[in-house]
């Protein structure tokens, strides 16, 4: 059977479409000239400017604090939720599943808006704490979904065997369950961490004075022109993304060979 060329051509065009703007952005971060269509020679001056900007370091610190705290909390809550959802099939779990699933499909702006209303009507001061609460809320669902997928091929007879041999609930949780499920929980945590670092819309609605995160800083710079410093910052963030994707793919491979 003769194969059509349409799929190949579309795939190639889509890959060019995906990567061309990113490549141009990276190349420009080393461009002496501030215009993307003119090559002014190789330069690291945008990186020097970036590292000299104190507001960026401040935003980076906030981002790191929020992302770490939100990742740990959502890993605990998400894993627990996935375990319960997998273990029990009741009306309560149907409701539980809807609660875990719905945040995944709600547009960011609605989540940001509704949380802002909650904090405003309770007179809670906007700041790092409100951002943390918001991030955990959307991260729980992602962690729960990733762990739930891993639980599908989890062999529960191991746990029954341990129970027969007299292990208590704590021994089963820490000795069997967590080590076996660790790659799944880590993959979920990695996703939560990336989502927290990246989130702009929800954070923007629930942030207050002095709680700028990196995306908020980038947005503010973008609104006021096209400073080439953003190219340098974006390039560094892209490197971080590549490492995170590579790590999570590795976790995937380990799972399929295990």
């Amino acid at each position, binding site marked *: *059977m003769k194969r059509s060329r*349409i*799929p*190949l051509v*579309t*795939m190639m065009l*889509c*890959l060019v*479409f*995906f990567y*061309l*703007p*990113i490549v*141009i*952005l990276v190349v420009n971060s080393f461009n002496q000239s501030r*215009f993307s*269509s003119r090559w002014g020679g190789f330069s690291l001056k945008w990186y020097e400017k970036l590292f000299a900007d104190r507001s960026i370091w401040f935003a980076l610190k906030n981002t790191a604090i929020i992302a770490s705290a939100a990742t740990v909390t959502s890993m605990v*809550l998400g894993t*627990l*939720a996935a375990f*319960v959802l997998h273990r029990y099939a009741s009306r*309560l*779990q149907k*409701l*539980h599943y809807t*609660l875990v699933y719905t*945040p995944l*499909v*709600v*547009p960011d*702006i*609605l*989540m940001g*808006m*509704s949380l802002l*209303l*909650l904090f*405003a*009507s309770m007179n809670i001061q906007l700041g790092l704490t409100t951002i943390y*609460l*918001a991030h955990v*809320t959307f991260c*729980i669902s992602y962690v729960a979904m990733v762990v739930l997928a891993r639980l599908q091929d989890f062999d529960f007879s191991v746990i029954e065997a341990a129970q027969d041999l007299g292990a208590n609930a704590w021994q089963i949780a820490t000795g069997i369950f967590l080590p076996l499920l660790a790659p799944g929980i880590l993959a979920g945590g990695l996703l939560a961490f990336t989502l927290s*670092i*990246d989130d*702009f*819309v929800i954070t923007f*609605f629930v942030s207050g004075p002095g709680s700028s995160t990196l*995306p908020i800083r*980038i947005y503010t710079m*973008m609104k006021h022109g*096209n400073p080439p410093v*953003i190219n340098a910052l*974006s390039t560094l*963030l*892209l490197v971080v*993304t590549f490492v*995170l*994707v590579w790590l999570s*793919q590795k976790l995937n491979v380990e799972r399929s060979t295990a």
Partner: protein
Amino acid sequence: MTWGPRTKETLLSLPSMVWLIGLFLVPTLLVFAISFRPSTPFGGVGEGWTLETIRGLANPNYPTIIWRTVWISLSTTAICLTLAVPCAYFMARAPVRWRSFLVMLVIIPFWTNFLIRIFAWKIMLHPEGLLKKFLLMLHLVEPRTILMYNEGAVLLVLVYSYLSFAILPIYAATEKFDFGLLEAAQDLGATRLRALVQIFLPGISRGMITAALVVFIPALGSYVIPEIVGGPSSEMIGNKIAQRVFVDRNLPHASGLSALLTLAVVVPMLLVLMLQRRSPSGLSKPEGRA
């Protein structure tokens, strides 16, 4: 210490359920409630109940903006699906060792920071940018043409942002599709087009429905993309919500608009749920959907 299974289940469900009820369900309901509250001059929410916001929603600009939001979101979804189906087909038919590499290439933009992707396009579309130079060279645009601040730019960047969302679920469905069916149909005399439309597309319909949802719903709520590459003539409902919050500090009005958007999101979701109930296998004949 021993607990009954019911108590144990409830206790274990409690942490995530309490968190999500308190910080997701209650706030979502608040959106509807605060739509009926008066606004205060200092950007807060007043006491008592009023229909002020509901009357405010009759603003003659809103129908245009709502129509534009729906139109742009539908176009984004249609373009993404049209591009994603051939891509997914190519990926699923590629040799196995190539597949994970291709998936990785599609996943990377999906993990890349959303603002960076928009910024990359802002540079491309800039009057001094590469795309303009390229189009000028081909004599496709005039030197005065502005590529940004219009609906076309918003649509382009939306497609760019959500295309990988569309490819992944369609690829997942295509990978499970039995391509032998296509050859069988052609052996039995069906043309290639007929085999594709009547066998392949229904076979991957579940993936396509998921893809349509994960593109359409976030597109309806877009706010940053029209804010950065769009102009006043390409504002979407998300921009209006943000303006009411950050510019006018009128939270009840913003709530009213958000409540409208919530309803707009719920309708397609319920529709899909109903569709999936009716054809659990996802292999129903296309005629059956009418």
